[in-house]
């Protein structure tokens, strides 16, 4: 089989304020998810499963976690003799009024696209959780009328926020433009809206042309905007994705997506399909469940030591849950320790949080309590350092 005909672009510069403090030192793309993954594993696995060998990755301001996770790209077969991962550094000043910076922004894209020597380009949003068959998307694209294809997922209107992007799809199945969810009326029967996934496929030559045109404009226009305009200009083909999808744009959405993995159908569809989700290997030891442990409907990573109760929760690698502790509807990232007889309910602990004994920390499904990375929690008083209450 010859080399892939597709190259991929992932831009990790995605607004992440709504996910503070989880995104204080990392972009949304490296948020831990479902007990052992990072968000970027999903686009990268789509890429690996489609046999794509050229990936342009646009780095965020805080790129340490990205570099550490992706390394050579070997996890996703991206360390072959041709192609691979091409990273483009964050432009520190980010002052795009400066024509040099602006030119640099476009040049980075043009350099990658021209060098990739591929016929098609796929652009994937870095805050997506999904498992897309990109070869199938390519087939769909080739059969479509428009020179650009964009993806959507029908989601219950009640689960969306009015400011999220959605597609306005004509009766003929073409996308006339990208609007916000609030602008659309949900389907009468299914109460769903076609939510835009921020995934696009088009000819590489067309994308090069579009980027070149943009670089000659008076105003600075970023790639997502260029693509959005192309959707309107060409009435893009609309590919309906039917698998599990979450657009991680808030703490609540992040929490809900983790909880959704505790529904077997979602877990199976996203993580256990023929298209594997690949992630960096850690060589952890098996997780030990003691005599006293009680675990109920939960996902757990390896390297754990469980002596307490865990109910409806997602527990990442190397967590220690002491005797008498009770974890309920919570997300505990890698390396958390929970002391004896402490109760957590609707709580998110970032990596390495240590919670002392005999405490009760309780959030709500709407507003989970969040403790930031490496916080040491010794009281359940409201003023605890590291704790963030959502307004």
């Amino acid at each position: 089989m010859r080399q892939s005909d597709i190259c991929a672009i992932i831009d990790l510069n995605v607004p992440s304020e709504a996910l503070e403090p989880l995104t204080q030192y990392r972009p949304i793309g490296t948020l831990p998810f479902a007990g052992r993954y990072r968000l970027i594993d999903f686009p990268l696995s789509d890429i690996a499963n489609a046999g794509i060998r050229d990936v342009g990755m646009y780095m965020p301001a805080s790129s340490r976690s990205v570099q550490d996770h992706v390394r050579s790209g070997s996890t996703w077969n991206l360390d072959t003799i041709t192609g691979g991962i091409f990273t483009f550094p964050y432009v520190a000043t980010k002052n795009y009024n400066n024509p040099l910076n602006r030119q640099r922004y476009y040049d980075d894209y043009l350099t990658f696209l021209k060098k990739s020597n591929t016929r098609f380009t796929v652009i994937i949003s870095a805050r997506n959780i999904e498992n897309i068959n990109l070869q199938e998307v390519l087939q769909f694209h080739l059969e479509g009328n428009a020179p650009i294809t964009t993806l959507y997922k029908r989601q219950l209107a009640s689960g969306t926020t009015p400011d999220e992007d959605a597609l306005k799809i004509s009766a003929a199945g073409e996308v006339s433009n990208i609007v916000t969810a609030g602008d659309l009326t949900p389907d009468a029967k299914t109460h769903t809206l076609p939510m835009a996934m921020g995934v696009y496929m088009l000819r590489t030559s067309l994308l090069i042309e579009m980027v070149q045109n943009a670089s000659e404009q008076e105003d600075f226009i970023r790639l997502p905007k260029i693509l959005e305009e192309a959707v309107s200009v060409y009435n893009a083909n609309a590919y309906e994705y039917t698998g599990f999808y979450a657009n991680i744009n808030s703490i609540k959405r992040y929490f809900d997506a983790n909880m959704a993995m505790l529904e077997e159908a979602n877990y199976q569809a996203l993580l256990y399909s023929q298209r594997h989700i690949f992630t960096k290997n850690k060589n952890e030891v098996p997780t030990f469940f003691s005599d006293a442990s009680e675990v109920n409907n939960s996902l757990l990573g390896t390297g754990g030591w469980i002596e307490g109760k865990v109910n409806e929760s997602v527990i990442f690698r190397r967590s220690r849950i002491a005797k008498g502790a009770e974890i309920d509807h919570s997300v505990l990232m890698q390396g958390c320790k929970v002391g004896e007889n402490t109760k957590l309910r609707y709580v998110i602990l970032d990596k390495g949080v240590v919670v002392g004994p005999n405490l009760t920390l309780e959030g709500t499904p709407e507003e989970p309590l969040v403790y930031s990375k490496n916080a040491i929690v010794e009281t359940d008083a409201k003023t605890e350092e590291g704790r963030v209450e959502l307004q």
Partner: protein
Amino acid sequence: MSTEMLAMILAGGQGSRLGKLTKSTAKPAVPFGGRYRIIDFALSNCFNSGVNTVGVVTQYQPLELNAHIQNGASWGLNEKNAGVTVLQPFASREGEKWFEGTAHAIYQNIAYIDLYAPKYILVLSGDHIYKMDYEAMFNYHKAKNAALTVGVLPVSMEESTRFGIMNTDETERIIEFEEKPAHPKSNLASMGIYIFNWPTLKKYLMDSYSTDGNLEDFGKDVIPAYLSHNEATYAYAFHGYWKDVGTIQSLWQANMEFLEPNNELDIANRDWRIYSRNDALPPMYVTRSARVNNSMVVDGCYVAGDIEHSILSQNVRVGEGTVIRDAMIMPNAVIGKDVVIDHAIIGERAIIGDGASVIGKPDDIAVVGYQEVLGKAVEKR
């Protein structure tokens, strides 16, 4: 290319006492402890000890071992001009080079060893569970100015009758070797771990195979030859957990010991990690109907049954109403609903149908073999 000490891991054994478990795979490739294969211990010990050039000598059913080892990257053994080479018997002008014994296997691979021109070679067995710093033994070998250092494990005097025993003088020099002595004079059991000065060993092997070819085995032939020629041969005592998992009973026993919190192997000690090949698997999923106690579970497991004092390896599925007790379940086994498994080892990819039972006793462990199907087929999840 040159490397000071090269390791040769002997991984060609059939492991016939493991019965069904090694029917289609070599003993070093047998799964252990939920997410390891036995050879991971020797390979990880090499990496952790700074031994970066390793030949793995295979012969019996090598497919799984090859698939497991690949380019050695999983153990950090993929350096340029070093790393892992899997060595299999091959044909040459002199005839086919099957390996007739441990020493003969080294003789047949002289060309490989000389590629790296080592001063020393470390000979290891690929079927032991232990964490050992070979560098410490190497330093001892050099300090003693030895021609051969034998790794030995102090065992109880009763156990000494079951091992090859090294009798030493007060300087730890080996003066006598006795295979399974009825009346042991010492308790230093050979671990099948040797450091040789390569030029000396090579000369012995070349001389032997150009004449009578009687140096087939290290324990039986080479050590006695070294002793009779008065070569400086020393015993290096290892203190720590070491287990030969050569039988069904000892394999089960070692897995059960692995389950004990604070067991001597100390698998979770990150200063001496054991590495293995990793598959892309989702996190383990413990459902509402599951109970898991005194057990170890790893990636990719789906658990809906009752697990007590057992190990579930990667990608094992356990249906509702099933009870698993005192058992080791190997990777990719599928266990249906309402199954009872007690004192057993379930082989890789085995399928246990709904309602079936596999029941052994503490001194007679039940075994379901690799890919064996028991009872009616399980509904695919």
